[in-house]
């Protein structure tokens, strides 16, 4: 019964979305305040109904209601409670419900906090948001309904894929979706602005916080996903350039570009048309990402069981959403008035270059990801584009971007002084050389490119700090005065420093772990030792262990370095009973500077075990750096100027003047 109520609520949510998408839009066109005012209650009603539907499905999972087909296929009565709850979105149908829930939540947020938006803009933003909701609600109800019953009901379920039975499932998809779907806000604002024919600083000020929030979520979601893959899959890798990873990475790249260009619109009223286009493209890539993941057209580790009907439906959805919005853009964009002028060497110029490199990098990833599809459509040959392609195209495009990321913030708006900016970066250059030399010495040579790249990461890190210390005049005035200056700085300035420094940390982690990674594969008997990167791992044997719904073989390694005992590591091999599916649980010993990563393979039947040990320098920095970047985004988001939100046009201009002064 409860499940039918959930199903019914989802249908009602579609009706609410239809109302929200039609009447307020007509109202906005006719200037009818009463019709426009319908948008807000409709958005709240949609959210309430979707949340209700989501709760009923969760209830079915928690109570193991095996009359529901979706629960049967993805749950089991013996599954721990955490995975009963997270299992709700650990499958196709449930994850679509999560998508819709987050979409409705963002819509309601505009309804709740957008009181100071001009009424027509708010009605139109909510209207566009509703149209996206209609598409996905219809998709879920018609092709991916999680509320279908099964008869006769089986005694028990088929369990959740053991790889997904991990706390990572609790955080990774919700965060990632919040990022993906969060870009729908920028999209809705862009479409609404095109309909209104007006983009100004105030518009950018409304869009920026939503973009920033989505970006922070997406950064966190991608980082968590990569961490999860790192510890769960047992390959010691954190990024595989898998189509589904790329699907989340492309909106991130364009979203990052959007974040920067929106600042130019806000502060200088320039780059408006481009920003609108970026907002449309960013969300389009989120949609394409959903298509890639959900349709299974590309071979990927994430592929769920697939269904051509779904792929077709999403393809239509894509064509309407992307084609429609780009057509609207082509028709309406020329009407937007061009904004402020700037010299090539200026903050605006730096943002343009930033946008060019990010877009080019995104285009390269896009091409590499979809190339197999294009080629198969053209001549039927099946190819795959591997990591070497992405390393050879993406990395060279990031080098100038990172180099310039240290310089850009040093340039003032309108017209800058490159020599002056470079002079201020002397310390950063020194840091780059020093870190390069240290890397060279520690790793006794190593690839020259890697050493140079470490230097580049140091350049960005020191550069970001120099910009900040210059602004607070650290060591040049009394500490109390510096503190006062730091407090007076807008939060977004601190946010930028954090985000850029975080990027430098991520970069160092990526270089360290991919270039100086060491790997040993050995066949060991109990009592034998394996050496890696100065550590000795003594294999003490394998014992049996019973988990709640699995049985494990657990190996024991004691780790010593120079005779000193450091740790004991327990890598496991588990077999989950219901699906009789084995999984590998790596044991990871992490310090601030490196990870020791141990995996056991199969027994050879004569007392020996295959083991694989990795030593990955700096790998924890990848996630540390992402954390710093997210912290930067959230710090920036807490900026008073963004929080207060919708100032009048006049205020926007005067504060823009203050910011440039």
């Amino acid at each position, binding site marked *: 019964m409860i499940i039918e109520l959930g199903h019914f609520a989802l249908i009602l949510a579609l009706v609410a979305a239809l109302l929200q998408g039609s009447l307020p839009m007509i109202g906005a066109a006719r200037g009818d305040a009463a019709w426009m005012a319908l948008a807000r209650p409709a958005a709240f009603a949609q959210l309430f109904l979707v949340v209700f539907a989501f709760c009923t499905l969760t209830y079915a999972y928690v109570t193991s209601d095996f009359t529901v087909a979706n629960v049967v296929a993805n749950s089991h009565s013996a599954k721990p409670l955490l995975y009963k709850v997270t299992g709700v979105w650990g499958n196709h149908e449930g994850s679509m419900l999560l998508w819709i829930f987050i979409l409705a939540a963002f819509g309601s947020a505009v309804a709740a906090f957008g009181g100071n938006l001009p009424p027509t803009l708010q009605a139109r933003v909510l209207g566009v948001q509703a149209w996206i909701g209609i598409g996905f609600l219809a998709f879920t109800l018609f092709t991916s309904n999680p509320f279908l019953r099964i008869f006769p009901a089986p005694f028990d379920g088929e369990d959740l894929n053991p790889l997904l039975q991990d706390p990572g499932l609790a955080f990774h998809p919700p965060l990632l979706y919040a990022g993906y779907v969060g870009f729908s806000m920028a999209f809705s604002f862009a479409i609404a602005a095109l309909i209104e024919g007006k983009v100004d600083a105030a518009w950018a000020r409304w869009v920026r916080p939503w973009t920033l929030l989505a970006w922070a979520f997406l950064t966190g979601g991608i980082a968590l996903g990569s961490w999860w893959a790192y510890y769960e899959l047992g390959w010691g890798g954190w990024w595989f350039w898998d189509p589904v990873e790329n699907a989340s990475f492309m909106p991130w790249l364009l979203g990052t570009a959007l974040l920067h260009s929106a600042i130019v619109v806000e502060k200088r009223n320039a780059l408006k048309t481009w920003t609108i286009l970026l907002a449309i493209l960013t969300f389009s890539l989120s949609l394409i990402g959903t298509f890639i993941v959900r349709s299974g057209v590309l*071979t990927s580790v994430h592929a769920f*069981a697939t269904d051509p009907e779904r792929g077709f439906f999403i393809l239509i959805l894509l064509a309407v959403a992307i084609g429609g919005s780009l057509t609207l853009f082509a028709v309406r964009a020329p009407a937007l008035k061009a904004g402020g*002028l700037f010299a090539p060497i200026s903050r605006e110029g730096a943002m*343009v270059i930033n946008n*060019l490199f990010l877009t*080019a990098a995104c285009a*390269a990833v896009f091409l590499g990801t979809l190339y197999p599809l294009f080629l198969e459509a053209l001549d039927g040959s099946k190819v795959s584009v591997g990591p*070497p392609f992405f390393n050879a195209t993406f990395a060279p495009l990031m080098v100038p971007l990172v180099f310039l990321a240290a310089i850009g913030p040093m340039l003032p708006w309108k017209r800058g002084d490159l020599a002056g900016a470079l002079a201020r970066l002397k310390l950063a250059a020194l840091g780059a050389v020093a870190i390069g030399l240290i890397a060279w010495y520690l790793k006794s040579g190593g690839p020259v490119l890697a050493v140079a790249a470490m230097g580049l990461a140091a350049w960005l890190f020191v550069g970001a700090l120099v910009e900040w210390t210059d602004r607070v005049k650290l060591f040049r005035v009394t500490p109390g005065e510096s503190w006062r200056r730091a407090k007076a700085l807008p939060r977004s300035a601190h946010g930028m420093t954090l985000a850029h420094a975080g990027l430098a940390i991520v970069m160092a982690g990526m270089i360290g772990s991919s270039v100086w990674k060491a790997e040993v*594969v050995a066949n060991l008997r109990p009592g034998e030792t394996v050496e890696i990167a100065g550590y000795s791992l003594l294999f003490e044997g394998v014992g049996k262990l019973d988990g709640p719904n699995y049985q494990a073989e657990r190996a024991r390694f004691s780790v010593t370095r120079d005779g000193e005992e450091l740790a004991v590591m327990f890598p496991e091999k588990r077999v989950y009973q219901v699906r009789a599916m084995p999984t590998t649980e790596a044991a990871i010993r992490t310090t601030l500077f490196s990870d020791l990563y141990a995996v056991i393979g199969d027994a050879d039947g004569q007392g020996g075990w295959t083991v694989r040990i990795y030593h990955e320098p700096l790998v924890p920095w990848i996630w540390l750096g992402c954390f710093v970047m997210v912290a930067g985004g959230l710090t920036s988001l807490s900026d008073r100027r963004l929080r207060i939100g919708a100032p009048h046009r006049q205020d926007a201009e005067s504060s823009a003047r203050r910011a440039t002064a």
Partner: protein
Amino acid sequence: MTRKRRRFYIVVAALLVFGSATALVLTALDDSLDLFQSPSQIMAAPPPPERGIRLGGLVEEGTVLRSSDGLSVTFRVTDGAQSVPVRYQGILPDLFREGQGVITVGSMGQGGTFLAREVLAKHDENYLPREVVDALKESGQWREGEGEGVR
């Protein structure tokens, strides 16, 4: 700085960045494409050793042999019509089993043995890589409904 001049600079910068990106993409595409081949295709026309290949099919029953040191393993990949011997060094994925779908990435070595540097098994027992399904269909070994996704 006039509007026209600014536009000119932006266009030049865009051309430079996208031009170099295109050059990078074209050179990289040339040597990092892995071609998907079924065992039948490989036996019909063995690819040169420098060519990156993704060989997909089913792990033939009874062919998985581990070396005495336990580090390398050999098996045959079949599409039902033909089969190719494969050698791989390292730990096999958890879901690697005889009779199951697999994709091996590598190149042809001496004596017609495929040298795999990567072995990919599916992440979900109900999921078979699409290329493998197509290869099985081509060799006539595919029965509709078998190995298809969970309902």
